[in-house]
């Protein structure tokens, strides 16, 4: 029988290794798997490559993970958020690497990882610093950059409702990076608000099919 509902955060996060690439969903405060990120601090894996839209705010969540010295490299789109304090300090001190990626390219690279593609050509960033060192190819009279896929050893996503099959729905704009990151994680763990009683979710409403999800953990909202 398929039952992806984990009894604890620790169970869901067991086995994450040092050096892992960890995808963390969320944009602003929407769709951030805060409890899973706290669990990752507990879990203890270090030397991580973290992929997130931003680079943390305040001293909680991924900022706390960075403050704990667990993150070797940050791949993100916008590390300069209001209230971001930990990352700028570490970066200025040369204690963390940074790869800045245009937002659409970042999510497309994650999708490409999940979809088994080797890379893709995008017009975004042509003629800018983003193009430095990248293959440029003229296709149909227009220039494109070659961008490479991102796969996560682990994806931590925040969803709304899950069933025992790992099928997920999201809530409003908290969907953001969740569906693409869920596809791209070799192991995907979802933090959810609610477990759907009575079997499977409405198949027409499912946003992330359970095939992409390894474990779900219900948390108090």
């Amino acid at each position, binding site marked *: 029988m398929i039952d992806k509902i984990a009894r604890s955060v620790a169970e869901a996060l067991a086995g994450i290794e040092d050096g892992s690439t960890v995808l963390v969903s969320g*944009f*602003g*405060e*929407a*769709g951030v798997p805060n409890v899973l990120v706290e669990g990752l601090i507990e879990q203890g894996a270090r030397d991580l490559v973290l992929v997130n*839209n931003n680079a943390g705010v305040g001293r909680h969540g991924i900022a706390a993970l960075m403050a704990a010295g667990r993150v070797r490299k940050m791949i993100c*789109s*916008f*590390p*300069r*958020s209001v209230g971001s304090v930990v*990352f*700028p300090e570490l*970066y200025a001190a040369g204690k963390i690497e*940074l790869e*800045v*990626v*245009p*937002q*659409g*390219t970042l*999510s*497309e690279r*994650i*999708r490409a990882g999940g979809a088994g593609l080797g890379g893709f050509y*995008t*017009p*975004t*960033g*042509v*003629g*800018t*610093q*983003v193009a430095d060192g990248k293959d440029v190819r003229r296709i149909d009279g227009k220039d494109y950059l070659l961008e490479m896929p991102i796969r996560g050893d682990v994806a931590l996503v925040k969803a709304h409702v899950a069933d025992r099959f790992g099928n997920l729905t*999201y*809530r*409003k*704009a*908290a*969907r*953001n*990076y*969740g*569906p*693409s990151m869920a596809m791209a994680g070799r192991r995907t763990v979802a933090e959810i608000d609610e477990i759907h009683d009575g079997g499977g979710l409405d198949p027409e409403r499912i*946003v992330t099919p359970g095939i992409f999800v390894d474990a779900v953990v219900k948390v108090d909202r």
Partner: protein
Amino acid sequence: MNMAQPLSRPQIAWRIAQDIPDGAYVNLGIGMPEMVANYLPDDREVMLHSENGILGLGPSPAEGEEDWDLINAGKKPVTLVEGGSYFHHTDSFAMVRGGHLDLCVLGAYQVSAAGDLANWSTGDESRLPAIGGAMDLAMGSRGIYVMMELCTRQGAPKILDRCTYPLTGQRCVNRIYSDYAVIDIAEDGPAVREMIEGIDLAGLQAKAEAPLRLAEDWRTLTAPDL
């Protein structure tokens, strides 16, 4: 001679809003361009896009009604209008890059005569580099309107022969709405479509490095008191 009275930011926003057609799909960049939403004429239905997976942004919620799962790209709480939808980030940027947005209104540090845009970095190495969605929006939208003052606070022109700051996108800007003028980026360079009362081409040129010309059918730029 009248001293020319430049438009305020709300007035620039109002002016842009008048040019957004009924039924358009539009992304309003974070910051100044967000003000455009306040001045969309009531008889037009415009669908506002947000990079984080929303079509159909509505006005800010009443205090106490905020839903932090429903925020815009600037991370401020918003609402959803009738006919709006949610989708994931990758689909959202497929909309952007695939040319599905009719218009995008962006702020700018600099715009070149050829329509190059610089709006993400001043090249200041002491600041963290942060791109966000700007490059995707610049390269993907069918039309790019820039909303800005003609000069910096220090009085330096922002319409240049060539951008000196790192580029956001090449040859992407279609039109600039500014405090003194509305300027198209035409094939042969910037062409003034509208300018406010009390200034002339020479006066505008003093505020731009790139050579400007007057469009044949240029008009006076006006906006209500706001």
